């Protein structure tokens, strides 16, 4: 298997790498680019911990080949806010206990980033339905749903709401 050259934009920055055609996108992001926020859970497309946005759409990076991202844009959890400037979604998760061990969290955040871009005002049922895609083993999901609701409030600037 000869290596192939790929050009992938990750979080707005262009990367050119020569890679094996079989390299998974999750391994590309984690080990070629060094962005370890994207986690690998089931390696089978079930748990969603590895969710990234590929050209804006949520994708299982553990079931996607890195060569499939050639010429495309990848967004990972590292594209969201930083510790001193968390995004409304991250802030919502922090305030409403949307995480415990933090392993599924990056995938949850990216999945919900996609949702909030297409629907900035989802109701609780819509959030729950979309969360079906990913697995969390700590929280029991209720707090994650509340976290996303809180993010919606923050995005509206309705900061008085608790």
């Amino acid at each position: 298997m000869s290596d192939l050259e790929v050009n992938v934009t990750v979080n707005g920055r262009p990367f050119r790498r020569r890679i094996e055609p079989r390299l998974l996108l999750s391994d590309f992001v984690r080990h070629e680019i060094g962005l370890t926020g994207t986690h690998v859970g089931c390696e089978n497309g079930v748990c969603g911990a590895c969710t990234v946005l590929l050209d804006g759409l949520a994708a299982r990076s553990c079931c996607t080949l890195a060569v499939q991202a050639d010429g495309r844009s990848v967004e990972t959890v590292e594209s969201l806010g930083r510790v001193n400037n968390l995004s409304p979604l991250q802030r919502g998760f922090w305030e409403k206990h949307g995480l415990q061990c933090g392993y599924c969290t990056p995938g949850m955040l990216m999945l919900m980033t996609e949702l909030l871009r297409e629907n900035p005002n989802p109701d609780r049922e819509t959030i729950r339905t979309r969360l079906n895609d990913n697995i969390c083993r700590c929280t029991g999901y209720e707090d994650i749903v509340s976290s996303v609701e809180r993010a919606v409030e923050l995005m509206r600037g309705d900061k008085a709401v608790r």
Partner: protein
Amino acid sequence: MAEAGKIHSPPAGRQKERPDQRLSVIGTRMLRKEDPRFLIGRGRFVDDISLPHMAHAAALRSPHAHARIKSIDKTAALALPGVVAVITGEDAAKETGPLPCFANPPVEQRCIALGKVRHVGEPVVLVVADTRYIAEDAIGLIKVDYEPLPVVSDMMEAINSKGDAVLHPERGPDNIAEHRNYLFGPVEQEFAQAAHVVKRHLRWARSGGQPIETCGAVASFDEGSEKFTIHVNGSMYNYIGFTVATALKVASHQVNLVPLDAGGSFGSKLFLHKVAVLAALAARAAGRPVKYIEDRIDNITACDNHGSDRTYDVELALDANHRMTALRYKVVDDYGAYFQYGLGTHGNGFSQTVGPYKIRAVGAEIYAVFTNKCQQGACRGFGSEVTNFMIERIVDAAVDELNLDPVKFRHDNFIKPEEFPYQIPTGNLYDSGNYPGALDMALQMLDYEGWREKQNAARTQGRYVGIGVASCQEKGVFSATEFWMLNRAPGFALTSSPESASIKIDATGKAIISLHAPCWGNSPETVATMVLAEQLGIDPADVSVTYSDTDHGLPGTFGIGEQAEGDSGIGSVQDIEQAGDQDTLRAGAYEFFDGKFAELIDDESGDGESNQDRTPGTCSGSGAGGHQDFALPAGMRPSCSSSLSAATQRSHSVG
């Protein structure tokens, strides 16, 4: 054994806070200290560790439940470019001893199967290569010749296994790992006098904890110091980490275990010796660091995430007033192929074996059997959940048979709030509780009476609504002493379950708490920060929390669940501080701080002595059922160093 309800030696409480006390930090709403790093994708999980020149390992796992390994051909695998080492069970046996086992006599288990495989998924060959991809390619090139053996998959069948169906013939001619009778209180007498005896046959099926992150380790071996460094996402690393050294045939000081954030555990990462030993074995063989992380199939088929798997024959004795008097049961527990924790889950059960009820005597006949399944690990309640299931099923059976009210029956049999501390027949001391209050509150929250009315109304329409009541008492901590009771002779070197933490305060008034147990999704950093900030009167933002490796941490058991937040390192933080006005911490702080903080310390000491004469330094100690704080040797003077550390351990005595 102990007489139920009789108190032998209840430990004196050391709590200084009053329930109604207003505290400035504890009890306030503080956002979790752990969260920001996880929210930006900067947790430190095992696959995030990358060491220079690191190789990667993958395991070839048995497709057979029970088979002899006749031969292994690794030629083609070794010839594959990028392959560094191919390690069979025979190779591994030259470098490693058996894996740790708490049972006595131990059951031999190897990190790579030696001679026989005893369950699907048992490792047969470990391959080390430049990349995980190449390691998995090489696995496909290995040829193993197996001779299948009879497979035992049923626990009752296992009791009568003979010949080749016996998993560990060197241990005896059958598949009974352990058969014990335990009697606590006058069981026979209570049954002889009983007005009613209720009997049931119960089945509790195997389940498994499934964290999203599998188990893994990154190991390196330093030839110069002859020492392993192993990053591992297990939790008991500071408690029984030394047993990993034994498996690697080195002394305990030659292994440093470094904790990591764990992506969930649910018990399954309690004691990760397999991945640590495999990675370390591979690192020594390869002469370079090695990462070994289970894939999901590795984890499901061979990790320690499988829980209890039992059948019970239970009998409950009641008097004429429908008060429960005695409980006895025969239980057969399918342990799978090995016996790493011995009867540990039954010991946990014994610590709460009467649940929240006044039952005067308990008898247990336990069969632990081997079958060709993955061995049991420490899943969730580790025996608590299945014990509660057994108790509540037999309680409901009594309610059904005697046509009683499930709520009133429980109320009548509860240990009452004024009866605490209460010693149960197995000797465990329940410190406090309000079972009637808790049950009533739950019934009120759920509108139990309303639902009973709806149930009756629905039934007139031909619809059936089921309503169940369960009242469970679950222990919050663990004591190693149970292994002394469970084994015929003590087979476990540890006698208590210490927890510890260290605190360092620098010249600028900032504090670092080092916890000696890891983070696995609980909130140890948040709680420890709140406790220290409260006690020292400093801003929580001036506290950071880190985790000590085994080279630097004092013993810490594991910080599981309630133990983490009620007692473990966090309790130790408070102990260290409370030791302060008698020995080190505040005195030390006095040396280094000025203004408000120094005044606070001065105000609080109140022992008539000048804190300035105190000696900062290090203190540590432990004791069963309490803690001791060791003072520094007399004459030792404060150094110019602008730091101070203090540590204390505490131990639990449960059961």
